[in-house]
């Protein structure tokens, strides 16, 4: 243990802004480098006539600026632009993912609290929870959609359930680890105060688990978007990004940029979810900066 007092440098608003600007600049530089590598590979590939691992041409590697400009062109002659459609698809898929994220997060959290309090449940239930994640989501998704469909549940809600299926696991596992993370001394201290199980949960286990919970939520945020996109496929939902991907896949050889543009929108949606969790983490854990990843 350090025998000297360490004064934390006071963070000023100016320093925060400077750091934020630096980060944004780094992201832009990163994107620029990626763009450069993509175009360089295509340029070299075309010159050398590369056929391995794939033939480099207009179809396999469209120019990135063409992907982006595809967004600004109308989908049908005289109709709205592709971006207009993408926006609505993203809102639709985002809604499915958000419900799935909240549902899965709540289930995962509740499950972790339950498991943290019973060794028997941990022994008995954990294997099945792990097995649930080894089953391919593509095999589970149609069953969920069909099964819930027979109960009259709307297809988009079934998609949320699929997103929740991918979301609950990391939350349950990490939260459980966090709830069990307090060291024996911290627990003994609580025992010396004759603290109730509830007190130990609220004053010790839950606060100690928060950094773990947030790292799980960051994984789950993107997983829920993926779950929603994949879930739309067996549900034959046409209103979201998953449906759009299936569609554009069929016309890939004639209009590859539309699929790529949709991929970019999917990535942007996942990033938006991730960023939301990151901001929430900053707000909740700001008092313990060493815990913020």
């Amino acid at each position, binding site marked *: *243990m350090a025998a000297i*007092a*360490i004064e934390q440098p006071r963070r000023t608003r100016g320093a925060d802004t400077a750091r934020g600007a630096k980060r944004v600049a780094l992201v832009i530089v990163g994107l620029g480098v990626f763009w450069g590598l993509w175009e360089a590979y295509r340029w070299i590939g075309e010159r050398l006539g590369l056929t391995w691992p794939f033939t480099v041409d207009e179809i396999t590697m469209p120019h990135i600026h063409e992907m982006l400009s595809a967004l600004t062109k109308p989908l049908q002659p005289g109709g709205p632009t592709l971006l207009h459609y993408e926006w609505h698809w993203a809102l639709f898929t985002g809604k499915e993912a958000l419900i799935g994220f909240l549902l899965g997060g709540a289930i995962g959290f509740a499950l972790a609290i339950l498991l943290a309090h019973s060794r028997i449940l941990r022994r008995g239930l954990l294997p099945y929870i792990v097995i649930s994640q080894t089953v391919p989501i593509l095999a589970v998704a149609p069953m969920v959609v069909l099964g819930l469909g027979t109960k009259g549940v709307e297809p988009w809600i079934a998609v949320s359930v699929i997103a929740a299926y991918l979301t609950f696991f990391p939350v349950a596992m990490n939260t459980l680890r966090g709830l069990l993370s307090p060291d024996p001394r911290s627990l003994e201290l609580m025992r*010396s*105060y*004759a603290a109730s199980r509830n007190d130990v949960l609220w004053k010790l286990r839950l606060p*100690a688990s928060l950094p773990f919970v947030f790292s799980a939520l960051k994984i789950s945020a993107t997983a829920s978007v993926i779950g929603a996109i994949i879930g739309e496929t067996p549900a034959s939902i046409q209103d979201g990004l998953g449906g759009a991907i299936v569609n554009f896949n069929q016309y890939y050889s004639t209009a590859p940029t539309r699929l790529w543009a949709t991929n970019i929108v999917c990535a942007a949606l996942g990033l938006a979810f991730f960023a939301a969790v990151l901001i929430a983490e900053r707000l909740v854990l700001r*008092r*313990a900066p*060493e815990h913020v990843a």
Partner: protein
Amino acid sequence: MNATQPAVSIKGLSKSFKAGVTALTGIDLDVRPREFISLIGPSGCGKSTLLRIIGGLIEPSEGSVEVNGKPAHRARLDHDYGIVFQEAVLYDWRTVSKNIALPLELLKWNRERRAARVRELLELVELEGFEDNHPWQLSGGMQQRVSIARALSFDPALLLMDEPFGALDEMTRERLNLELLRIWDASGSTIVFVTHSIPEAVFLSTRVVVMSARPGRIAGIVEVDLPQPRTGRTREEPRFFELVTQVRELLAAGGAEVT
């Protein structure tokens, strides 16, 4: 509680662990109210185990332990003691104030009462101005003072301390020794203090309980008749050295390797 009732009363206590290890055997000890008792002995003599049994955190195998006239288990449920460990065991996500107030929250004190008590304690352990700091912003010595304030927060009659200054450097330790005596005097509590430092035990205590190892038992008790209040000068008195020697000889007779 009447005045003659011991703060801690241990009768015929022994403790064996499942693996067949006998940690403690034949322990009899009465601690009078307002006493400062040190338990000293080689590592493995079960002094920390004894402290935990007094705290009702471990059950003895045989014998009885009473705190304020109640079984140790009952005394724990009644919040009759505060405990300080070798590590400060502060909760990282809580400020100094909130760490001190933790037991008070568990005791359902209201906010105003907690705040008033925390102010008193910050003054007692001389940490005014640090109330909004987090544990990782404090030195080891300051962390331990927070831990002592927390243990005293609900004004328990008994304070159990398990090598609280063992991880600190010598100078910090000597300063905190003096502070602890001041706190002991101000709070009017009884202290049972586990240490492996002979001078520390003699300097602080009214009685030093010397233990021997394997199995842990009481090798002897040294009455410390140094005048109160103890000061920095106490460590320079001839009587201090005589008592240190006495404890050292008891430890050696009990089979401890004393250097």
